[in-house]
């Protein structure tokens, strides 16, 4: 039986000036607490009204439920998470959705990644963070975050799975690479990596789990996450937001083609590597 919830007290300023603060131990705290709830709501309303590609919108929303991130400016420095001066200032700007100080110096300069020009640096460093060619960019961050969330969900539900994130050889990479031809070179390797799924869900033993029938029950599934770049082009965002799933669908339609190409590449490579052996044995 849950405890009865007490009704909230009326706002402190409901009392007239002649009786202000009667029975309140910490008047200042009550005033500020009530004000902060309203200020919080006000800021949130204004953040939601900003355009989708405004970094000031993105910054608070993406850390809304992250207690660690939201305490960046209010928490005390801890030994485990210390920022160097430049990194701290960079982090503050990202937290508030402002242009990072380091990229302010390099706006409109070319991004040269592995010797090739890959666009220009913009004020908010979106191009830099979202570049396909730089490791740790926004796209892979999105991808890994979603994968991590699904893994946590599966783990909590007790559903066995294999993930590409496993580093002990028990993940999907270890399983699938064993089936592929050894030492494929160059672009072939890149293509075969595309075949390796992010997740294998073993749900063949499940039926009617969670009381209701689930589409995933009764079979094993291979899952690959396709992630778009975060918050780059306004039209793209409006498009994907207004027509939820459209962008994901177009990504999904491209998947079979990619798999087919990769499979063909792997098969050709296997055929090439087997031919000389056969000739030699003859």
């Amino acid at each position, binding site marked *: 039986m849950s405890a009865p919830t007490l009704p909230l007290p009326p706002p402190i300023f409901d009392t007239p000036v002649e009786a*202000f603060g*009667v029975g309140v131990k910490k008047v200042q705290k009550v005033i500020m607490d009530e004000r*902060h709830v309203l200020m919080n709501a006000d800021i949130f309303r204004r953040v939601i009204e900003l355009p989708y590609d405004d970094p000031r919108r993105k910054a608070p929303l993406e850390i809304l439920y992250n207690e660690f991130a939201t*305490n960046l400016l*209010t928490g005390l420095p801890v030994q485990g998470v*210390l920022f160097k001066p430049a990194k701290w200032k960079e982090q503050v700007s990202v937290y508030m959705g*402002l242009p990072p100080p380091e990229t302010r110096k390099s706006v409109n300069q070319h991004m040269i990644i592995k010797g090739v020009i890959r666009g220009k640096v913009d004020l908010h460093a979106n191009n830099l963070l979202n570049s396909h060619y730089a490791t740790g960019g926004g796209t892979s961050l999105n991808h890994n975050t979603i994968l991590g969330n699904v893994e946590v969900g599966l783990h909590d539900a007790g559903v066995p799975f294999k993930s590409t994130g496993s580093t002990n050889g028990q993940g999907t990479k270890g399983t699938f690479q064993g089936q592929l031809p050894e030492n494929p070179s160059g672009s072939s390797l890149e293509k075969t990596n595309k075949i390796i799924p992010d997740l294998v869900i073993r749900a063949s033993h499940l039926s009617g789990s969670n009381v209701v029938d689930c589409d995933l029950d009764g079979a094993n599934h291979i899952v690959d996450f396709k992630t778009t770049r975060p918050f780059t082009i306004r039209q793209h965002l409006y498009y994907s937001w207004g027509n939820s799933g459209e962008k994901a669908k177009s990504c999904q339609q491209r998947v079979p083609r990619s798999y087919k190409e990769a499979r063909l590449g792997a098969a050709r490579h296997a055929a090439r590597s087997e031919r000389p052996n056969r000739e030699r044995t003859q």
Partner: protein
Amino acid sequence: MRLWPAPPPKFMVTVILVAPSRSPHLVPRDMLQVGLTTKRHATKASAYSPSPEDRARIPAYVKQHYFESTDSATGLTSRHYGIEIGGAAISADYMYRRLWLREKAADIVHKIRLVSKGFAVIDPQSGHAVNNYSLQALGEYIMKVHPASDTVEFASTVDEAMREAFNLCLGVDLLDPAEHTGSNAPDPSLTHDRALLRGCTGGASIRPLSHRPHFLSCLCNCLPLMLDSTGPDGSKTKGFFPNLVNILGKNSFDADNDSTRYSTFLQSGSLITSDYKAEYFKHKDIFEALCHKNPPEPSVSSDSPPPSSHL
């Protein structure tokens, strides 16, 4: 007779004389009689009276604190007398209180700059924490114990120094929308307002002294302690200053009179009364303006914030 075991504690001895007709009490001699000494802090013994005649009767070894000011029009220098008690400037002379607060603000600003610059060079992250939890609180006590109308300049000076300190450690002026948001950007003051928002839990943010209801809170806590009062269970509490009964009203703070406890006080016409009213309505207006902008209907959007989130 000794009130404390030897060695005697090192007390700052302060005397206040507010009754013009009485002769000054020679407190240092009395203190010696009860085992206290003023030798170490002989210069701390001080006295004040608003009347020049009474001040003339104060012995020479008792300090009378004053500030000097020069009239720019006439070039005449005048002295403004007062006394500091418990960290508050007490004087009937407005100029004394103003100059005392100016001096205090300069001290605090010096300390803020010294500490924040030192930290900003070594570790801005720690510097920010020090700004939040230590330096920001330096002016709070003074804001509490002085009439709100006296501390406007003080608050603005300290706020300005705190803003510099925050800028130094954060690397950006969060309170200046023009610096980081172009004029074409929608809602340019969003970052400014977000920086001013203190989280509901877990700490501070940039909170200007002028935004905080220190004085109002202090009055609500202190005024009921001045007079004798009777609690709801009939228990009696002795007041600290029963001679304020004419200003605060007899039995005003009895439990039966909760709904009218400040009625007599509000009609007294004193400086503190007008400041109390002004502060009450100032903070009420802030609250109502926020209520007006955010009507309390529950949001149906899936983007509703969690109740304890601090953006």
